[in-house]
C-alpha cells in the first residue's frame, strides 16, 4: 500500500528524469510572476493617481474598465488574448498573453486598493501641503501617496499573491511554466509524480511569499 503510494506520487526515477523540466517551468513561473507584479502594480498605481485628478470622463473610463477586468475570470481574458485577438490580426505569444491578462487584472484590483488608500488620507493632509505651496502633483507624490501606499500594503500583498498564483493558468495556452511542465511530464510518464513535484515547486515559490505577506501585514499595521 505504502509502496504503491510512493511509486505513484513520489516515483524517484520519474522525478529525477523530469526534474530539469520542472526547474525550467519554475524559472518561467518566476519570470512571469515578477513581470505581472511589476507591471500590474505600477499600472494600478498610475491609474489610481490619474483618478485622483477627478476628471469625470477619465474616471468613468477607469472605473468601467476596472470593473470589467475585476468581473471577468482571468482565464477568460487569457484565452481571449491568445485565441480571439489573432482573428483580428493581433498576435502574441502565450507568455505575453498570460502576462498581459494577469497584469491587467492585477492593475484593476490594485487600482481599486490604491484609490481606497488615497481616499483614506485625511483632507487636512492635502490642505496642509497645498498651504505650503506644494503643487497638486507634489502633494500627491510626497504627502498623500506615501501614506496611501502604507495603508494599502496588507490588502495589496494578499491580492498580489492571489493573482500571481494565476500564472498556472498559462498552462492552458501552453506557457512552459510549472503546471504545464508537470502536466506534460505526467502524460509522457503515465505517472503523477511530476504533478507532485509541480505542487512542491509552487510551495517552494509561494510559501515564502505568503510568509512575507503576513510579515508585511504586521509590519505595516497602521499606527493610530
Amino acid at each position: 500500500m505504502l509502496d504503491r503510494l510512493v511509486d505513484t506520487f513520489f516515483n524517484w526515477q520519474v522525478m529525477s528524469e523530469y526534474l530539469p523540466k520542472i526547474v525550467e517551468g519554475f524559472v518561467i513561473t518566476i519570470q512571469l510572476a515578477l513581470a505581472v507584479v511589476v507591471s500590474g502594480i505600477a499600472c494600478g498605481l498610475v491609474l489610481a493617481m490619474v483618478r485622483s485628478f477627478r476628471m469625470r470622463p477619465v474616471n468613468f473610463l477607469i472605473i468601467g474598465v476596472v470593473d470589467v477586468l475585476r468581473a471577468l475570470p482571468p482565464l477568460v481574458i487569457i484565452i481571449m488574448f491568445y485565441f480571439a485577438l489573432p482573428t483580428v490580426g493581433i498576435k502574441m505569444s502565450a507568455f505575453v498573453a498570460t502576462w498581459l491578462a494577469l497584469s491587467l487584472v492585477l492593475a484593476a484590483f490594485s487600482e481599486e486598493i490604491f484609490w481606497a488608500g488615497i481616499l483614506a488620507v485625511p483632507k487636512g493632509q492635502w490642505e496642509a501641503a497645498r498651504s505650503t505651496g506644494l503643487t497638486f502633483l507634489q502633494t500627491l507624490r510626497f504627502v498623500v501617496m506615501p501614506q496611501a501606499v502604507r495603508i494599502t500594503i496588507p490588502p495589496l500583498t494578499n491580492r498580489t499573491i492571489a493573482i500571481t498564483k494565476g500564472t498556472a493558468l498559462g498552462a492552458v495556452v501552453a506557457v512552459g511554466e510549472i503546471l504545464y511542465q508537470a502536466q506534460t511530464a505526467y502524460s509522457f510518464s503515465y505517472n503523477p509524480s511530476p504533478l507532485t513535484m509541480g505542487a512542491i515547486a509552487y510551495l517552494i515559490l509561494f510559501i515564502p511569499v505568503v510568509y512575507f505577506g503576513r510579515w508585511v501585514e504586521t509590519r505595516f499595521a497602521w499606527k493610530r
Partner: protein
Amino acid sequence: MSDSAPILDVRALYKSFGHLEVLKGIDLQVKPRELVFVIGPSGSGKSTLLRCCNRLEEPNSGSIRIEDIDILAPGVDINAVRRRIGMVFQSFNLYPHLNALGNVTLALRKVEGKTREEAESLGIQALTRVGLAEKAKSFPNELSGGQQQRVAIARALALEPVIVLFDEPTSALDPELVGSVLSVMRELRESGMTMVVVSHEMRFAQSAADRVIFMDDGRILEQGPPEQLFNAPDHPRIQEFLRTIQAH
C-alpha cells in the same frame, strides 16, 4: 499702529457653499506686525474667511491682496502666493510618515528647491524657534498635541511667510498643552510677525491682540482694540457671546 500698506487686504468678500452664504461682504485690512484676533460663534464664517485668504476655499466674489498681489487674479501663481502665507490648522495636519524635521523641510526642498543640507539647517532653526530642536527626529505620533502644533507652526515659519493664519490652533489640545502653543505664538508676535488668529483663547486675545474682530453670520459685527471689545462692546450680540464663552 503705523499707516503702512496692509499685508492682507480683503474687500467685499463673499463665499457660499451651495445655497448657504457663509461670508456676506467681509472687509479686513491687516497691517505689518499686527495681530488680528477673530472671534465669533461657530458657523459665523471665521475659518472660511481664513481659508479664503490662501485660497483653500475659492471665494465667490470680492478681492484679496497679499502684499499688493491680487491672489484671486486669473493666472496668479497660487503656489508662489501660498509660500508667503503660513497656515496653522486646528488638527495640526502634520505628515505622519515624516519626522518633525521632514515635516518642516518638505516645502523648503520641493517648493523652494533648497538642497537637503540647506533645508535641514533652516528646518532646525525653525524648530529651535518653537523650542523643539531636540525633537527633530521624532515622528508626529511620538509627540504630544502641543508639540505637534508647535512643529506645524515651525513648518509654516520655515518658509518665512509675511503673514501666518491660525485656524483655532489650540482647540484640539488638552488644556494643559495650550500654554506651550500660546507662548510660541506670543514670541512670534513679539518678533514682529503679522498674524490673523481665529481662536477662543480670550485671555490670549486680551494680552496679545492689537485688534479683535467679532464675526457673526458671515459679517464683521464689530472690531476694535481688545479692551474695548471685551469690556465695552457696542453690540448686545457680543456681550451675549462673551458671557457664554466665559461661562466655562
